[in-house]
């Protein structure tokens, strides 16, 4: 009975979270909704006598994968959001049609099933949930388990290939960098000190957030020109930043 109640409660929670994930425009909200879905699933596993799976779900998905998502979002800027304007004609319409048809078919398929009585979790977990799972993984599915390692190695290698930059020249030492800064200062008048961070009065520390000077004005040095121009195009730019940008463009 408890299981049924949990299921229906979590069903509502997870489905609405999933819908929120799809329809929300803010990436951070999407990520958090995803977290809710994952946690709901973990709870469902737990009440179905699969503690190992529940733990793994929380550790791997909620713990690791979610965090990765959030890191990426932080790097991109929490405020950034995607344009949801559909430019392809008929895309939405057919997507809805196909989605409804698909849902109807699956419902028809699953709904018409008459299940034989289940073996029962007790019987399956007789030797304990984790040992039984281990037995399956290390006997019947040992080859699949081992081959999965190829997948992980590929993923690691792929990350290296796509993201790693080979250093093609000697790394500049602190001394050289410092000298270069001062040479530039002497020749072009560039400030040798680092660029200002978001500052004490900033509300966030994402890269698109300009630093505030003590008088509340924006530090020109802290405005990332690429992002500012992008935001200007998207129309999401802070008016104060926009002023600075306009001043420069003239």
């Amino acid at each position, binding site marked *: 009975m408890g299981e049924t109640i949990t299921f229906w409660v979590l069903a509502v929670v997870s489905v609405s979270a999933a819908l929120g994930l799809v329809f929300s425009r803010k990436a951070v909200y999407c990520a958090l909704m995803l977290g809710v879905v994952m946690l709901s699933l973990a709870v469902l596993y737990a009440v179905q006598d699969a503690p190992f799976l529940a733990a793994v779900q929380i550790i791997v998905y909620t713990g690791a994968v979610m965090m990765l998502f959030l890191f990426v979002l932080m790097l991109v800027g929490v405020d950034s959001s995607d344009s949801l304007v559909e430019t*392809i004609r008929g*895309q939405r319409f*057919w*997507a809805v*049609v*196909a*989605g409804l*048809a*698909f849902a109807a*078919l*699956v419902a*028809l*398929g699953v709904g018409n099933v008459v299940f034989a009585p289940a073996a029962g979790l007790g019987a399956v977990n007789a030797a304990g949930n984790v040992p039984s799972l281990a037995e399956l993984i290390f006997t019947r599915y040992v080859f699949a388990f081992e081959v999965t390692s190829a997948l992980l190695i590929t993923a690691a290698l792929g990350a290296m290939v796509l993201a790693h930059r080979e250093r093609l020249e000697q790394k500049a030492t602190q001394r050289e960098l410092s000298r270069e800064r001062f040479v530039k200062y002497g020749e072009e008048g560039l400030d040798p000190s680092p660029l200002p961070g978001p500052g004490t009065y900033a509300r966030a520390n994402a890269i698109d957030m300009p630093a505030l000077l003590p008088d509340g004005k924006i530090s020109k040095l802290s405005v990332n020109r690429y992002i500012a121009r992008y935001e200007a195009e998207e129309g999401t730019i802070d008016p104060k930043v926009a002023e600075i940008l306009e001043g420069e463009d003239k």
Partner: protein
Amino acid sequence: MEPAEILSHTGGGAISLAWLMIVLPLAGAAILLIGGRATNKWGHLLGVLMSVGAFVVAALVFLQLIGLDPAQRRQSVNLYEFIPGVANIGLLIDPLSISFCLLITFVGSLIHIYSIGYMSHDPDRRRFFAYLNLFVAAMLLLVLADNYVALFIGWEGVGLASYLLIGFWQYKPSAAVAAKKAFVVNRVGDFGLLIAMFIIFAQFGTLQYAEVFPAASQASQGVLTAIGLLLLLGACGKSAQLPLQSWLLDAMEGPTPVSALIHAATMVTAGVYLVVRSGAAFFPEGSTAGLVVTIVGVATLLAGAIIGTAKDDIKKGLAGSTMSQIGYMMLAAGIGPAGYAFAIAHLITHGFFKADLFLGAGSVMHAMNDEVDMRRYGGLRKLLPITFVTFFIGYLAIIGFPLLSGYFTKDGIIESVMHHNAILGWLAVLGAGITGFYMTRMVVMTFFGPKRWDEKAHPHESPAVMTWPLIILSIFSVGLGAYLILSNRLLVFLGPAVGQPAELPGFHPFSVPGLTTLALVAVGAGIAIAKYGRSEVPVVQPRGSFLTVFARRDLYGDALNEALFMRPGQWLTRLAVFFDNRGIDGVVNGLAAGVGGSSGRLRKIQTGYVRSYALSIFVGAAVLAGAWFVVGTL
């Protein structure tokens, strides 16, 4: 006697290695073509070696074959299944095919050797030898095949080699045009052969000789005649018989060894081979198809001879003669088992003496800076003694001078045709007389009389590598006929392959037709000597009488083709275009446009956006699942 049954070869020996005959020259061609310039230095030697190798294999197979009991002499060697359920690649070793193999490889090897000298100054000599090797391989496949599919592959292979070799000097527009013409005309014939094969397959369910031939008698007469006539169409294309003769004269644009090997000795006789090979099944004695074969043969032998009388180009004169001689073979092949042995005997001796004549002509051209106009020759016998002697022997052989090769074989043909149909026989005799005229004319204009060549030409005898093949060929031109015909050697030998008449023909040197033939040849030769030997030969071609022009223009063959086929063809095309723009448009053009148009429309689905691709997959999945439901619950 009926042909023997085709047994499948089981024992070992040379017969089971017969495939080497094809593979050796094929490998030679492949090495020379793939190896490219790297093989320039020794390419011609490899070509010769491969051809000689094929000859050695052929000789060994021949020796093994004659060691067998006559009833065992038709053996098929199955190599592998080619098109499962339709045809195998297999070789049929029997007296007929081995006779061809020996001719092809022996004459072929001599011509390979000759070409070393003839092509020595050509920068593309290696490529020439590669094509020659390719030709030999394809020709051997053609005659050795034990089914129509493999025969057809060889048939197309020799066509390809012929096309490549006629157009070997493709920078000459005339050579390129001639190659194209040969290609197109041959396609007409091939089409006939192909349709014949379709009918055979539809009728008998197989294309293997071993299964088709015994079953042929059960098919209806109409089908057999249709197959026979279509096969004849194929034969006419390849053997330059009327009405598909027009390409052969132009084909003389190719290098002379090619004319000798392909367009005189071997490839053009493939049509005769086809008729003889299929003879027992599709051209039996007294059949309609056989009658048509004899008519085509007679018409061509006369037409070729007449064309030969008026040509000033030595090679074209010889080409006319080739047409004419093949006409003799066709004539004999058309009358059934009584003629087969004579057709093949004449084919073999013709292979030797015509190759001898062509190579001799080549030697003359080699000496005369590639001049081909006989009106600019004259008096060459002293300057080119070996060429003269060998050419003269070839000449005597072809006109049927007593006791030389052509005498026995041509006389045999006339004799057997006389028994079959007197009218055809007398026409053949007339042809022999004309042969006497034009061949004498050729010899006289080339070797006798005053010299008529430019000061720039310095005639010289060819190198040994060219004269030795001439000498060998001329030796065979002397004695081979007597060997094959006397005591019916070839007839008995070929018996198991093509059948032989119940009564063996005797040799009657003093029969009426025989003596008439000799007399007519003498008259022809006399006229030629009187006309060209006694009086001045003008260097520039005179206008000539109506008849001369008629012959010069190849009996208006091209004009006829143009009027009968090309113009109406063009007219039909124009008409079709007219209708196409109106009515048929909707069907034919509409179809093409429809395909292109729907392609353009469908292409729009391919937007390049990954989400629309995903949607297409999703829709597909929904449709698939729906379909599964519908099918599964029905």
